[in-house]
C-alpha cells in the first residue's frame, strides 16, 4: 500500500491536450479530481427567458442562435465553469439546431462563493441570443 502511495505521487505527468496534472501510468493515480482550491466563483451555462426565469440547456430541443457559441478552448466571453461540462452543453446546443419558438438567452450564471456565508444573488453574462423550442 505504501509503495502504491509513494509511486503514484512520484509518477505524475502533465498531458498535452490540457495543462492539468494527470497520471498516465494506470493504475497509479493520486485521485486529485476536484482537489484544488475552489476559487472565488463558480458558473454554469443556462437558458434565460424574457421574464428572467432560467432553465437547463437540456430542457430545450431546438436552438437557433444569432451568435456562434464559443467552446471552452476559445477566448471566454464570460467566466467559465468546468470546461468539459460547459463544452458538453455547447455541443448539445450545436447538435440541436432548429427553429425556435420563443426568444431566450444563453447565459453563464455565476455565484460568488467567498466569505463563508451563503452566496449572494448570482450574476448573468449573456453568451448568445437565441430562439428556443421546448
Amino acid at each position, binding site marked *: 500500500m505504501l509503495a502504491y502511495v509513494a509511486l503514484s505521487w512520484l509518477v505524475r505527468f502533465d498531458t498535452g*491536450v490540457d495543462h492539468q*496534472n494527470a497520471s498516465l501510468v494506470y493504475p497509479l493515480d493520486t485521485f486529485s479530481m476536484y482537489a484544488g482550491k475552489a476559487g472565488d466563483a463558480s458558473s454554469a451555462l443556462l437558458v434565460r427567458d424574457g421574464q428572467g426565469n432560467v432553465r437547463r440547456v437540456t430542457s430545450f430541443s431546438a436552438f437557433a442562435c444569432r451568435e456562434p457559441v464559443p467552446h471552452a478552448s476559445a477566448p471566454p466571453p464570460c467566466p467559465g465553469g468546468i470546461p468539459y461540462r460547459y463544452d458538453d452543453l455547447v455541443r448539445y446546443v450545436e447538435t440541436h439546431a432548429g427553429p425556435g419558438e420563443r426568444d431566450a438567452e444563453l447565459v453563464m450564471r455565476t455565484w460568488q462563493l467567498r466569505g463563508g456565508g451563503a452566496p449572494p444573488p448570482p450574476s448573468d453574462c449573456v453568451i448568445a441570443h437565441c430562439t428556443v423550442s421546448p
Partner: protein
Amino acid sequence: MSRGIAAAQLRVALAVVAMIDLVSFYFFIGEARERALLAGAPLGWFVGALSRAPVRAAVIAIGIGGAVAFARAAGRLAIGFVPLVALMLLSNVHGRLFGSPWRHLYYSGLCLFGWLMGLAVARVRGTPSDESYARTGALALLGAAYLNAGLSKLAFGGLDWTSGAPIQAVIVAQDGLVRDGVLSTYRSWVVMTPAVAASFSFATVLFEVAGPLMLLGGVTRAIVALGLLGMHSNIYVLTGILYWESMVFLVLLGVLPYREAADARGTPLPVLSSPPAFRVTAAVLAVAALFAIVHQQGRYTAWANRRTDADVPPRVAEPEKPAPRRIGPFAVGDEVAQGWAIERLTPTPEGFRVTVNGPAGQARFDVNCVDVEHRSPFDVGRAHIFYPRDVPLSLVEPVGNVLRDRLQSAAAARDPCQVVDDWTASVR
C-alpha cells in the same frame, strides 16, 4: 453453510467489473478521439493508432479473454496481467485524448493489480492458490486510493478544502441550481448553507484519509467502507457524478464479511508484530511518499500561480478580423436550395462552418477533413460535410446535396482536403 463472500466470488466480480470497464473504454475513447481531432489536437502515432476503432476493439477483446481466463480458477497470476495491461493501454490513450484520465475507471485495474500482487506473495510463500493474500492486496490498494484522494485535497487545496467552497463550486457548475425538483432543492440548500457543505467536505477528507484502516478488518473496516459509500452516494445526488465501480468494491471488500478459507494465511499482522525488515521498508516508503507529495505540491502551486497570472493578462485591444464573405465556392447571401441561403461563413480550427437560414430555421454544416469514424451522406472523398445530428436528414438533405456538389465541382480533379485547406488558410 458459513456466511460472507468467498475469494472465488470476489475474483469473478473483479473480472466482471474489469470487463465492463474495458468495453466502456471503446465508447469513451471514440468520443474523446473525435473531440480531440475536432479541436485540432495532434494525436501522435501511439494514441492515433490505439484509438482507432479496430485496434481498440482488438485490445478490448484480448483483455476480456484474459479476464475470463483469470476468473475461471484460483492463482492465475500471469493471465491476470492481460486485462490489466489492456486497461492500462486504453486508460493511457483516453487520458491523453481527453486531457485528464477518468478516475472511476481506475478502480478495477487498481483492485486487480492489488489482487495480482497478493497472488505473487502467495506464490513466493509456496501457496499459489491461497487467495487470501490477493484479497488483502486488493483491499490495501482500494484503501490507498482513498488515502491518495484525501492527501490530494490537503496537499492541493489545503485546510481551505474543508471550508465547503469546493463542494459548493462543483454543485453549482454541474447543476446550475435550477430548482425543478426535489433533488435540485437539496442541491440548492447545500450551496446556500455553507455549514452543511463544510461538514460534507470535512467528512469526505476524514473518511478518505481513513481508507487504509479498512485493512484492520471487523467493525473498523465496515465503518470506513460505509462512510465512503455514503460519500459517493451523496456526491451522486448532489452532482450526478457516479463512481459505481468503487462503490461495488467497497461493498464487496469492505462491507460484506469475508469468508476465509481454512488454509488462508494472508491476514495482515499488526505493524509492530511484523519482522524488522518489513518495518524498515514501510518506514522508507512512507518517507519517500512524503517527499513525493511535497514535490507534487510544489509543482501544483507553481502551475496554479502561472494560471492565475495568465488569467489576468494586460488587455490590448486587437482589431477583430471581419468574418469572411466568401470561402471557396460559398458566399454569404448565396441562395442554396428551397429557400435556404448562406447566412455566415466561419473558419474553424479544422476547416470552416457554413451557417444557413431557411424556412425551418438555422442549420450549420461543418466542412473539414478530420480523421473520424463518422461519415456523412454529403462527404466528398476524405472531406466531410457534417450536418446537425439531431435534425432530420430529410430537412437538410437538399442543402447538403448542393454544398456537396459545389465542393465536388470546385475541387474537380484535386484532393478535396487540399482544396478545403487552401480555402481556409486564405481567410484565417
